[in-house]
């Protein structure tokens, strides 16, 4: 039982991070049809900037806020300089552009920072809390809490504000949204900024547990993408569900089966699910008009 609880908690922690990356994917995809493979780099930027500001003596909360601001600026620049000029390009071309952006950001991080692994001190100490025989890191609670607050904030924003409704309208039909006077360009920029902020926050929350380095983003982007597809592309609730499920599968199989194939679990899961449900768990069946 303690073992089970232990895996459950670590699965939820990792899953919360995947869910945040997947939610970032979904926000950008809904606003612009772009699958942003640089999503993992936002996570890396969040962790790295916070760590280096911390080394420079900046207090942690301020460093975290600055890191999120840096990520938002990078997200807005990515949209303005790389995505906007390529408007109307094919899906594959757009995918290659974002992969190019992720290679570029990784290269920049390698030059600006270094190639070492870096750590941020845990927010409330490293002493584990014992709960029914399982040892839980306080930082895990921070990750889960941060993720829940983010999800609630995003869903309230979509549901209760005019701007949020503009985002939803753009997602469901861009042309119609333009016709009723929504500035879809602003909505796209907003999605890139918001995704970058969510990614950076995820990076700041998880770095005390997993460390970060200039190339930490790539695997996270792949798993976040898998999580978003698992839930059904374009469905924010599906993205969160997909992320948490992937985290749980991964930790339980690492605990009970073999840890050397931990990274394989996400991809085996996505293949098996897609073979049975070609549009993901919560995805709508695509109907094509001829």
């Amino acid at each position, binding site marked *: 039982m303690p073992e089970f609880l232990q895996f459950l908690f670590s699965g939820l922690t990792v899953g919360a991070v995947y869910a945040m990356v997947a939610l970032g994917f979904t926000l950008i995809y809904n606003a612009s049809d772009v699958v942003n493979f640089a999503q993992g780099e936002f996570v890396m930027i969040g962790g790295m900037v916070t760590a280096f500001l911390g080394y420079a003596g900046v207090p942690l909360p301020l460093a975290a806020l600055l890191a999120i601001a840096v990520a938002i600026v990078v997200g807005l620049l990515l949209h303005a300089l790389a995505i906007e000029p390529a408007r109307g390009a094919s*899906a594959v071309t757009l995918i290659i552009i974002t992969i190019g952006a992720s290679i570029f950001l990784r290269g920049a991080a390698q030059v600006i920072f270094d190639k070492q692994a870096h750590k941020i001190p845990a927010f409330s100490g490293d002493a584990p809390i014992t709960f029914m025989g399982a040892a839980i890191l306080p930082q895990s609670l921070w990750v889960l809490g941060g993720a829940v607050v983010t999800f609630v904030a995003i869903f309230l924003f979509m549901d209760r504000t005019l701007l949020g409704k503009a985002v939803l309208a753009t997602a469901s039909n861009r042309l119609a949204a333009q016709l009723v006077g929504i500035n879809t360009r602003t909505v796209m920029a907003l999605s890139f900024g918001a995704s970058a902020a969510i990614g950076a926050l995820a990076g700041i929350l998880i770095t005390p547990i997993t460390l970060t380095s200039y190339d930490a983003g790539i695997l996270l982007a792949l798993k976040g993408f898998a999580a978003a597809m698992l839930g059904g592309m374009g469905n924010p609730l599906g993205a969160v569900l997909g992320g948490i499920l992937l985290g749980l599968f991964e930790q339980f199989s690492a605990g009970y089966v073999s840890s050397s194939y931990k990274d394989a679990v996400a991809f085996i899961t996505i293949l098996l699910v897609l073979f049975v449900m070609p549009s993901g768990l919560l995805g709508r069946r695509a109907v094509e008009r001829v």
Partner: protein
Amino acid sequence: MRSFSSSRLATLLILAAAIAALPLIFPSGYYFRVAALVWISALAAIGLNVLMGQAGQVSLGHAGFFGIGAYAVAIGPTHLGIPPWASLLLGAVLAGGLAYLVGRPVLRLRGHYLAIATLGLGVLVSIVLTNESRWTGGPDGMPVPRLILFGWRVSGAETWYWVTGGALLVGTWIALNLTDTPTGRALRALHDSEVAARVAGVDVARYKLAAFVIAAVYASLAGSLLALMNGFITPDQAGFLHSVEFVTMVVVGGLGSVAGAIVGAVVLVTLPQLLTAFQDYQHLMLGLLIMLFMIFLREGIVPSLRALWRLRAAGAAA
């Protein structure tokens, strides 16, 4: 139809002339090596172009098949006592077989779902290659025994230049001919519209699968050649970034054009060689250049040049 086949012949002749003439201007063995790398990558890119350019299906996991070919010629002779040339064929059969087995369920998917499924497949191959260190040497890779054909030990940059150049010529010839077969026509039809192709009686699932298997075999053969030439292989060759490189070659050169796939390979292989001068800034520059190519030459190099040529010709006529 006449002009079509003459342009195919031109592609083949220009390629043959380039392979034959380039050594005349190469100042050192290093150039032979880089050129051989280009031919190998071009072979894989031509195969991927059959899938992406002709059948219109994306694959973000093609390095997986490349890795299967590469490790076949490493594991076969080292652990199983199979001679290298037979291992090369075995690798192609394995890669083609895997593509055939997973092809049907994977190719039923569309768009981004297809992208993530192929990506997952490629990543799984590279994870297996990294983890099964008893067979593969793990993340550090393993040595590959030399290729010996009829008592002739194939080694040296110049020899490999000719071997890989010859393989590329044959691969190009087959791919160019494929365009005019019933399979090529069926692939083009389903690229334009799957529904229309189905209505016209094309067995869509079968032809997509054929394109996937062809692309996998090309990648596997290219992987085997690389491993045999280098005498060493690491799991990076099967990794996600290598898959992205292949896709970028096809798109940068020009989707659907055999010549484009070759040009794309030239660009993507030689660029990093030129960028090594920038040392730490290498990745930064590579990412930047990929973005610039895709933003400003989104149709690809060969189709863009062709359009420019036509414009010039039209201007001269008027």
